[in-house]
């Protein structure tokens, strides 16, 4: 069991390193260097060659790619992602608080979405083919078919404009404590929740339908074991295991959703910094944000893998 767990931790670390390499390659090597990317051709043409060389030297762009890659990886470990090209602020200072804020948002969503999705998924699977099930299936398709920014905007129109009970945009600032941030952003949380619940409930319904159709459930029913024991003690863990393996996709889509929703509500998180970074072509900022969010996804995956180890003894043999 311990060996199996360590193996998964190691695999996650390897994945993370590969991700870092991939992110580096995607942004730095392929289309010229960071300077070409940040400055337009006209701008470069304006700068005298010796100054350009000096700028490149400052940024370390004159070194060969593999050296820069090593420097990037080394920096990533120490959370030093270099400085921005224009204002020369350390990247870690720019994304520190936004990262925390995005994590707060994600945490709040997960905390509410998981129990709700469990309840909905179990109910739909238990009454498979009945009205509840159709309602859940149809509702969940609609739920994840509407883009987050549309849901968010409509929530704003309903609950901030037509019936103003919530603020339209977040009034809290970047460094406010977690609770202040959350208290000022119920609509943002609700927006991400809708898509998340739709997705997770559907996943759990499928898992639960399969689990309830398994031979062991039939045996228990044929032995007259009470239905609640069958559903919660026998079928539920078996339903959660396959859903956990699909969590990677969900985690990635959760991060995507959060990025968009932050923009809609002006929530001071990574999404804001990302769009700012892309429009200003701040390669280091985009790299750092990509790596951080990928790390969150990898971490969630690792948690899922470890949970599977706990729930499914068949995976434990090392």
């Amino acid at each position, binding site marked *: 069991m311990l060996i199996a767990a360590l193996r998964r931790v190691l695999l996650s670390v390897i994945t993370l390193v590969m991700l870092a390499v991939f992110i580096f390659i995607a942004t730095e090597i392929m289309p010229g260097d960071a300077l070409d990317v940040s400055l337009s051709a006209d701008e470069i043409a304006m700068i005298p060659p010796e100054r350009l060389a000096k700028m490149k030297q400052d940024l370390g762009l004159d070194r060969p790619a593999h050296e820069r890659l090593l420097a990037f990886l080394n920096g990533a470990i120490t959370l030093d992602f270099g400085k921005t090209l224009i204002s020369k602020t350390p990247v870690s200072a720019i994304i520190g608080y936004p990262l925390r804020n995005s994590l707060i948002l994600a945490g709040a969503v997960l905390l509410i979405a998981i129990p709700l999705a469990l309840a909905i998924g179990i109910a739909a699977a238990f009454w498979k083919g009945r009205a509840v099930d159709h309602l859940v299936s149809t509702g969940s398709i609609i739920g994840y078919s509407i883009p987050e920014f549309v849901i968010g905007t409509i929530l704003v129109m309903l609950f901030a404009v037509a019936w103003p009970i919530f603020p339209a945009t977040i009034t809290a600032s970047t460094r406010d404590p977690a609770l202040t941030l959350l208290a000022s952003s119920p609509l943002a949380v609700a927006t991400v929740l809708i898509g998340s619940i739709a997705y997770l409930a559907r996943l759990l319904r499928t898992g639960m339908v399969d689990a309830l159709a398994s*031979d*062991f459930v*039939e*045996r228990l*029913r*044929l*032995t007259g*074991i009470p239905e609640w024991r069958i559903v919660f003690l*026998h079928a539920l863990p*078996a339903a959660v295991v396959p859903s956990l393996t699909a969590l990677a996709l969900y985690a990635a889509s959760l991060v995507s959703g959060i990025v968009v929703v932050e923009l809609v509500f002006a929530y001071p998180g990574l999404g804001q910094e990302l769009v700012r970074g892309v429009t200003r072509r701040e390669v280091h900022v985009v790299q750092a944000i990509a790596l951080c969010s990928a790390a969150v996804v990898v971490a969630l995956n690792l948690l899922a893998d470890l949970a599977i180890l706990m729930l499914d003894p068949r995976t434990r043999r090392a």
Partner: protein
Amino acid sequence: MVQPASEPIIRCSGLSIGYVDGIGATTRVVDHVSFLLEPGHSIGIVGESGSGKSTLARALLGYLRGGGRFLGGQLEIDGVEVTSAATASIRALRGLRVAMVPQNPLASLTYHIPVGRQVEEVLRARRGLLRLEAEQRTVALFSEMGLPDPEIIGRRFAHQLSGGQRQRVVIAAALACDPALLVLDEPTTALDKTTEAQVLELVQRLRSQRGTALVLVTHDLNVVADTCERVIVMKDGCIVEQGPVTTVFRRPSVDYTKTLLDASLDLTGDAPSANTLADVLVNAEKLSFSYGTGGWFKRPQRQARPTLDRVDLALGRGEVLGVIGESGSGKTTLGLILAGLLASDQGALALEGHSIAMVAGKRRPEMRRRIQMVFQDPLSSLNPRQTVLAAVMRPLRLFFGLNRNAAREKAASLLSDLGLGPEYLDRYPRQLSGGQQQRVAIARAFAAEPDVLICDEITSALDASVAGQVLEELNAMRRRHGTSVILITHDLAVIWRMASRVMVLKDGIVIEAGSTGDVFAAPKDPYTAALLSSATRVKRLNEEPTPSSLINEIAHVA
């Protein structure tokens, strides 16, 4: 054991059950079935897949799978009319008065809960026992089932037990509340023959000790022969014959029962005679195979023993060599290696004395043509997106360069040799029955005009009557083309009918080989003897009446 005649525990009259599909159409799977079972007695329900026997078995516990409906008739279990009873009173029957041992013990135990806890759960939920009592009772039950170290076994998970142990755990869970009726659904299908004998012995012992009435559902007549007093033969949802086991198996009154009985091993005739191996066509030495060591990033899979361990094999020209083995014996692996679909870890393979490459892709086209294979599952051996013609034509065009018309003609003639008319050429596999699909697969193999044909369990997915015909046609084809056949099967009756020589495979090792007549008449290895003994129970009924069945017959006549 035999109690005075009292109220029957099962009173089933004119029972019909059907399944309703999404559009609302009803398929009847149990059709006007009537029978009685007295307390403490035993009855076997035999039939092929699709005969409705499993649906009937579950109905005995008042349980129908999704979409199932009682369409008519009565079914009274222990005084409760389950076709109309309230859910609560049916629930009260289950586990307490009637219990079921399901088909697949591994899947029927919850994989994430230790097996002991699952038996305790029955005792606590159904009998209201306290935790400690339930634990003690479970240990006692486990030792009654003959499980070694009951306390330790109880803390294990299902996947950590052997097949026989799992089956014993499931039986213990069923018997936990001492039911009056035990329904066993294919209780030995997942077990090897040695374990099967032990489990059947256990069931017999429990019945005589506890006086539990028994319903045993199976496709294997041999299982019924030893275990049950009476037998019901089902086909397409109807009972075609019922009566005491000895009577039905000795003097079947219906053709269908005869077909079933004919498919079981009968040693009274002669096996095909074996010549001395003068003209060796295929020679294989030390074929071995161990399953994967994983990939670069995967967990290395440790395997205790190789799937196939230094197997030698010689096939004479024109002969049929039988390979007997149960699931997990390595017989399919052997077939795949001979065909060149798996590479042996060591050893050598030679055709007519010339060494050939282990993997088909590296053999010369001529060599590939000369070794062909027919697979177990007829549906999956044909590409669902290709017509019969396309399937049979491909080897003709590839190996002989025939043009379309010539290939079509040749394909038609191959099919007609197997009893399929030209109208089948343009059909897709899904439009054919299992037997027809397998004939097409055989035609495709013979289209390459092979010298060696490897047949891997080619009749195990077919009904007994169809299987017999397919084997006949295969025999005729191989005689006509002078093809040597390696016949891989778990069915001793098939070997007896077809093969002149036989080798017995167990755990990847050849434990016995020789002419079929010699091996079957005087098996040297105890495992071969166990296989033979379990396969010949039906026929032994003909020879000596067993004491217990005699008593039962008298009891029923009275």
